[in-house]
């Protein structure tokens, strides 16, 4: 009987994930899987509720990226109130939402780099976990830590100014926005006391990219060879091919860069994307229908976005994008650890976009909402920090939601995360009889590159986030690790 190694975060309510690595009697990896228990109750819960409640209701789904759900639902409701499919909002409405979105992107990407990536990159995967963490970074790289904390704070303040409040923000409403940005708020972000201003955020975001490039130059072997596998890539892009994290058309490329989904309107996403159910995971496996279930899976998120777009429409990020693309000779980058590089380039883009938007007088406009002829169905898509987020709703004549379908970023990345785990498992577990901290962390590093949202909406004390258990050939527990 083969042994089974389990890595399982135990949660009470929403999704939880575990990694099972099946070893044969010779301790070779026979099979590895990332199981994610996805909470799907939300789609039933929202049925019967008035459509205009959706942008607030959906924030119950996730306490980590509530802004992304808030905006995706609002975009779907724009269609339902007849405000068009992304291009019908007033300039103030659209630009306030974009500011909110890029604020979210900035704080989320900053957190991921500082909290998850930098400890592994600065200390190494095999480093003592006592130092390979946020506090370790603080002790060894205090300037970086201070920057990260204040970058997060800046992003959160952008969200507060646009969404209205931290919990259950109400800024985006069907057809627009419920407030503009006052000149005082704008000036605080543009000219705030050093370091809390847009220019400093851009310079720190640039420094983070430079830090990664410096690390990469010294650790190419690890970063270029860890969990590398060919993948399709999918994201929104602007109609002219530019990176656009808020709105655009759906584009997918294969591992060689060939377009396999050619800039389609996402209102018809269901004609292009299917969702496969597998009996060993509650989380579905999306795929491109034109390719089929077996080979149609794709990656979303920073790596995918830099593989699908033609250029980045802000100067500093574009310069970094050119360096990044040149590294793979213009071909799609399929190196999982380069997700961190891509994420930091996006973070620089987000900082530049925030300043660009703050300088736009439309943010002080008074015309906030667009309405038109009511529709009974709407789809809202955007690029959340972790990848493409789909919200699809149908309503009845009584304005009640009768159908909701959400494909969240982590679901889109289900297959690539499994592939990443499989590659790492075969690399580090083969021939090993026990779990070391470094082995366990290697699997985590592969998963964390995708920044999955496995268990986020509730957090109450009493939860234990991660467990590794090792069973012998008779099924008896012989080793266990918990963190």
């Amino acid at each position, binding site marked *: 009987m083969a042994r089974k190694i389990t890595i399982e975060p135990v949660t009470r*309510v929403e999704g939880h994930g575990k990694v099972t690595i099946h070893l044969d009697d010779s301790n070779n990896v026979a099979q590895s899987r990332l199981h994610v228990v996805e909470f799907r109750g939300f789609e039933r*819960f929202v049925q019967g509720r008035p459509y205009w409640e959706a942008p607030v209701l959906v924030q119950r789904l996730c306490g*980590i990226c509530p802004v992304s759900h808030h905006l995706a639902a609002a975009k779907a409701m724009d269609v339902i109130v007849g405000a068009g499919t992304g291009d019908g909002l007033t300039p103030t409405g659209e630009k306030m939402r974009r500011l909110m979105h890029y604020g979210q992107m900035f704080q989320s990407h900053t957190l*991921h780099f500082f909290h998850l990536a930098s400890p592994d990159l600065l200390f190494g995967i095999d480093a003592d976990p006592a130092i390979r963490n*946020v506090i370790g970074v*603080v002790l060894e790289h205090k300037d970086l*830590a201070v920057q990260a*904390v204040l970058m997060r704070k800046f992003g959160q303040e952008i969200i507060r100014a646009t969404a209205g409040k931290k919990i259950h923000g109400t800024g985006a409403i069907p057809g627009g926005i419920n407030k503009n940005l006052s000149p005082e708020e704008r000036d605080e972000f543009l000219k705030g006391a050093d370091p809390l201003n847009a220019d400093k955020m851009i310079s720190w975001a640039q420094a983070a990219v430079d830090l990664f490039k410096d690390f990469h130059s010294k650790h190419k072997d690890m970063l270029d060879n860890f969990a590398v596998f060919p993948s399709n890539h999918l994201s929104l892009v602007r109609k002219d091919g530019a990176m656009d994290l808020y709105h655009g058309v759906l584009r997918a490329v294969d591992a060689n860069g060939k377009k396999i989904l050619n800039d389609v309107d996402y209102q018809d996403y269901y004609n292009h994307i299917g969702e496969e159910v597998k009996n060993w995971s509650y989380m579905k496996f999306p795929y491109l229908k034109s390719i089929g279930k077996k080979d149609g899976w794709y990656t979303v998120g920073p790596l995918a976005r830099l593989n699908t777009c033609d250029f980045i429409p802000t100067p500093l990020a574009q310069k970094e994008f050119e360096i990044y693309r040149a590294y793979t000779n213009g071909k799609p980058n399929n190196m999982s650890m380069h997700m961190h590089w891509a994420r930091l380039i996006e973070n620089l883009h987000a900082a530049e976009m925030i300043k660009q938007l703050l300088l736009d007088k439309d943010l002080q406009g008074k015309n906030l909402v667009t309405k038109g002829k009511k529709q009974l169905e709407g789809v809202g898509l955007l690029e959340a920090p972790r990848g493409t987020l789909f919200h699809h709703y149908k309503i009845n004549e009584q304005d009640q939601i009768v159908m909701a379908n959400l494909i969240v970023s982590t679901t889109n990345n289900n297959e690539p995360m499994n592939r990443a785990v499989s590659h790492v498992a075969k690399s580090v577990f083969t021939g090993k009889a026990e779990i070391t901290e470094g082995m366990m962390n290697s699997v985590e590093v592969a998963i*964390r590159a995708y920044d999955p949202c496995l268990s986020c909406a509730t957090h*109450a004390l009493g939860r234990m986030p991660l467990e590794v258990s090792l069973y012998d050939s008779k099924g008896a527990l012989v080793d266990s690790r918990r963190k």
Partner: protein
Amino acid sequence: MGGVLVYGYGNPGRQDDGLGPALVGMLERERIPGVVTDCNYQLQIEDAVAVSESDAVIFVDALSVGGEPFTFGELEPSNDITFTTHTMSPASVLALSHELYGRPPRAYLLAIRGYEWELVEGLSQAAAGNLEAAFRFIGPRIGEILAGIGRDAVTEGSAIRH
């Protein structure tokens, strides 16, 4: 900033997970001089800034096991980092604040027992009772903490009413 920061965290859209923000909402209505309130879905690294600027901090969270109707105790900084970016413990926020700014305030955790965690707005009946008990308890404790840091919490009729 100074004073006492009362920071509730949790998701009010998931029933009793919203106990922390609910208690903060009750405190906000009392407008106690020297008390600053804040809440969010979870604690994060930037909260170390506000923590460092306070004389004392009371974190308020939901509790999923034991401790009825609530538990209250002093916290020490601790480096208990979790698997994801998605939350930090109050002790790790304290540790971060300490290491970054070198000024750890006195810190306490009020953990209120909850029971239901579904996609529903509003507390379960049992949790609401625990919230009332925690609110009755925390008022005098805040007064003691404020007095300990040189502020008078009960001047001009501003103390928490029970």
